[in-house]
């Protein structure tokens, strides 16, 4: 084990305890570790973006022939417009900050356009189709399958109806709301219970690090 690895493991252990100390209450050690983390990860984020996104994208885009290179430069110009949001410009050229809305509008538009088709194609149709389940008259199926199908169809219908905004659920119709919330609550409880295991695995990983890599106890 070389000296860098040793320093690294000690640093990692100290940082681990610094974060755990936040559980007791906010303290200077946590505050220090948190700021260090933000600083380092922001810088690493810069390099990750450069290395994984910008360099490959520019390289590929420049490999396009002739006129198409121009398209890449257009993107650079569009992207550069957001620099008007830099604090130096915001202070000295406040009248031009509106230009930074152009790249934002472009990216927003892309997101919106993709939503319009992908939600229907990837979600609405497949999920609705999967809910078309036989409710009776199934040869060779046992009562449990039929019961499950009923629960699924009713669950989807009532959960969806819970979100009706225009209906006023009063009196008899209040039942719809109650059945809907019943399904939602069972689902939320199950999701909660299901997640505990994954989160605990992370804590186990940290404790294993402390006991194995740092203290060599196990």
């Amino acid at each position: 084990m070389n000296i860098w690895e040793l320093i690294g493991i000690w640093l990692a252990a100290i940082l681990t305890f610094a974060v755990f100390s936040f559980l007791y209450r906010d303290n200077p050690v946590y505050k220090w570790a948190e700021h260090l983390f933000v600083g380092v990860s922001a810088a690493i984020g810069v390099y990750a973006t450069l290395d994984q996104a910008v360099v490959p994208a520019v390289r590929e885009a420049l490999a396009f022939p002739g006129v198409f290179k121009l398209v890449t430069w257009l993107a650079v110009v569009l992207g550069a417009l957001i620099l008007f949001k830099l604090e130096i410009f915001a202070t000295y050229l406040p009248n031009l900050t509106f230009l930074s809305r152009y790249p934002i509008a472009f990216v927003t538009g892309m997101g919106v356009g993709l939503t319009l088709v992908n939600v229907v194609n990837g979600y609405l149709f497949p999920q609705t189709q999967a809910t078309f389940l036989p409710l009776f008259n199934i040869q060779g199926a046992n009562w449990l399958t039929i019961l499950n199908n009923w629960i699924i169809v009713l669950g989807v219908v009532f959960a969806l109806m819970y979100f009706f905004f225009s209906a006023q659920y009063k009196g008899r119709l209040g039942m719809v709301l109650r059945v809907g919330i019943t399904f939602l609550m069972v689902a939320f409880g199950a999701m909660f219970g299901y997640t505990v295991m994954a989160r605990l695995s992370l804590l186990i990983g940290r404790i294993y690090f402390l006991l194995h890599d740092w203290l060599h106890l196990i």
Partner: protein
Amino acid sequence: MFRAPVWLVFIAGLFMASAFFIPVDPFPMMQTWALKWDVIVSAFALVVGIDSLVMHHIRRVQRRQNVLYSGTLLVGFWVTIAWGAFAWWRYGGPFATQSTFLWLFRYIVVPMDATMFSLLAFFIASAAYRAFRARNFSSSLLLLSAGIVMLGRVPFGDWAAAPIFTAFALLLAFYFLRVFRQYEGWGRGIRLVVGIAFLAVGIVLLWPVWLNGQIFPAFRFVVHHIQGLAGWIMEVPQMAARRGIDLGISLGSLAFALRVLVGIERGYMR
């Protein structure tokens, strides 16, 4: 028009949507370009983000406010930037396999990230303890399904489930039988019946009768079926409700996207 370019949203959105339906050039190619544009624009945006972060903390240092912490952040940031530049020059890339830059990632970012993430284990326990109270019917269901799924997923969970359920049933029976007298009319009757029902469940679970050569048959039944029950909850009612919510979300996002596209919704822009 120039100050709030809603038209650009419209054009970009319509283009991306139409490229979805047209599988011949130049549409797929232009779609690929658009995604590359996104990358380039995001890179410039990162410059703005870093500017915001660094200036925020420089101002704090200037105001002699949190000098130690903001100083740590700034030093950490610039040392990392310098280190990365060195690694790029020396190893041909900051994330090259032999690069020493990875040391920072391995011993600062990874442990901090993982530890922060692992705090959730503590928070989940305390949130569950605090919030999962059987205040009314629906919160009882939340609690019940969370408990079953939790116990059904781990070894020994099945053995713990039976005593906990028994205790819960007896607790509820005790509660209802104690408070029913304080209510009037229907409420009184219902609470009495529910209390007796819970008492019956508890007694059945603890009934030490020999059935098929086994003691505590109902107790054992719970032990053997808790795992299957947890799986069933995940696969049937959970899935149904989730699909219902997701269908609603899909329709909601569709309507919202349309509102944004045609420019009725422009709160995000100005």
